């Protein structure tokens, strides 16, 4: 029989970490700054996630919203939407959290260098994408244009207002925002995120697109990008699934034969086309 002699690990032990700061972003979203013990580095790549746990409330996958260029701490933006995240929203600076990870592949940044970078973020999809946005801003000379498209349901759901102000001010970042349902004060674009794509003037062959948003959004964004003649090879998507264990065992995150926690959550669009369940 084949040998069992492999280097095996306990895969499920969280590292007890400290919340340094909690910031309320919207009615349902908070941003947490977290430090690993002994100022250890998380060593993550943009697009990766961690498993967050609170004893008694379980564990859930949360994408990292800060760039590894801004270490040693890291940030998570969390929507209140379940047992664990409800509890997380009650926590304050100084409280402890369990962290496992980082998990997943992250964005293939090498492929982005020297290119125009187009970001398409829908709703809370801006959180995982912000990790990459900040990375490209911190290494601004490695990339050509940076274009950020961001759409939310209504103005009250807009995340990261401070950062957005910065992005708007900078001449080397093109930032466009739209909301589906404006309020009385809203003076900007109205409509779904795909309405921001047709007016763009793009060097399509040299533009790399990263898309993160709710499941429903991907097909429509892909259609709009195809309308602009962006090659499939230039498109990356980060897909949401239930990455319960993070280590390729529990089965919950599988898209066909692909474990999202191992091969994803960032997928090259040509690979998505091979996976019937992807989008």
């Amino acid at each position: 029989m084949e040998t069992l002699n492999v280097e095996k690990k306990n895969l499920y032990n969280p590292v007890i970490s400290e919340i340094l700061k909690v910031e309320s972003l919207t009615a349902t979203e908070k941003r947490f700054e977290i430090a690993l013990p002994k100022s250890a580095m998380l060593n993550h790549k943009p697009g990766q996630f961690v498993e967050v746990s609170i004893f008694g409330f379980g564990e859930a996958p949360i994408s990292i919203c800060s760039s590894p260029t801004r270490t040693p701490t890291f940030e998570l933006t969390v929507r209140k939407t379940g047992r664990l995240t409800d509890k997380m929203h009650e926590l304050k600076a100084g409280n402890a959290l369990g962290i496992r990870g980082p998990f997943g592949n992250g964005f293939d940044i090498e492929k982005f260098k020297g290119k125009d970078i187009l970001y398409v973020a829908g709703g809370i999809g801006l959180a995982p994408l912000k990790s990459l946005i900040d990375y490209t801003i911190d290494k601004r000379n490695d990339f050509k244009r940076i274009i950020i498209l961001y759409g939310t349901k209504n103005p009250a759901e807009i995340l990261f207002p401070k950062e957005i102000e910065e992005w708007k001010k900078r001449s080397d970042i093109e930032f466009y925002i739209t909301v589906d349902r404006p309020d009385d004060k809203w003076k900007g674009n109205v409509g779904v995120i795909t309405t921001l794509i047709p007016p763009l003037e793009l060097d399509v062959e040299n533009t790399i697109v990263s898309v993160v948003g709710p499941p429903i959004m991907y097909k429509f964004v892909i259609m709009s990008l195809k309308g602009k003649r962006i090659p499939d090879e230039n498109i990356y998507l980060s897909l949401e699934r239930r990455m319960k264990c993070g280590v390729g065992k529990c089965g919950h995150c599988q898209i066909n034969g692909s474990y999202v926690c191992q091969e994803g959550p960032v997928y090259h669009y040509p690979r998505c086309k091979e996976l019937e369940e992807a989008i």
Partner: protein
Amino acid sequence: MNDVTNSKLKKLKQYAFDKDSTLKFIEFLMQKTEVIAPQNKGQASYSYEIVKDAKDVVLDYPRTIQPLKKFFLPPVEDLLAFDLNANTYQEEKIEAKDKIFFGIHNYELEGIKRLDYSFKKGNPESNYLTRREKSMFIGISYEPDSYHFSESVGIPADKIDGFCLFFDKISNKSDYMVFVVDENGQKLIDSFGKVNEVKSKAEITAKKFQNKVKLHYNRIPQVFDHVYKSKVWDKVAERCVGCGTCNLLCATCYCFDVRDEIEINAKDGKRTRFWDGCMLNTFAEVAGGENFREKLNQRTRHRLYRKFKYITDHSGELHCIGCGRCSKYCPADISIVEIINSLIDDYTTQQKKN
């Protein structure tokens, strides 16, 4: 797939065991270590249990309800014990323990090999692999019933690699020809010492399977390349109730979920993992409420693709062992062999059209 072929079998040492020496051999094993073997569980049902009395061991049985996986991946297992107030935890210590599994059918051991693959691949998991260490398996032949189809998935009656000894029943009086498959088996026989080597070399008795897949097992993954959109999935879903029995009884299913439980003192608690199944409604649901395999046809398809395609693409082995449990215990009487054969028909029709 590395079979011990019949030509190799002829080179293996063989010993004759009768009913009495078999019983004495089990008692001998029990003196050395923990022995786990099939025993009666209710009427005409069987279960692998720790042997307390060698006479309880059942050697003629079609299959147990549960496969062997429960010994390495318990239905519920503690991962951590935590203190809510202090925010500290202790990881559960798992100790490798010597054990001998006696009277195991060959497909069952193949199931363990598939699980070994799954828990070793990528991130080798210590919980499973530590429990799995120091296990020895002693096989036994069986008469296929109308549910077994192991031969159709590449596990014929004479596939015995991985066992240390294999008991092949050669008469109705519980006489066995025992094949020594590896050095551990030889050591057991030598220290037992009460049996004689048989010089004339026998082969393992061939078995007739009534339940058959109508295409060679090497070609099943190829069929799965072409039947993703087959109507067969819809037909199965019309009958399936989504109870997940097939997942729970499957020798190669290992998906799990994890939850925290708090003691009544509101201070201590445990993080436990428990078996989950991809046939259950909420398996692919995320926190926002989106369910990525909401329909039964999608879930049935996913389960079958995990057996015949997804893992097979990496491991080179089918991850169905033909034990027939999912079909025998399905409350809607869905037969996995009928599903596969219908898919093969679909595939054949497609090929003719092209």
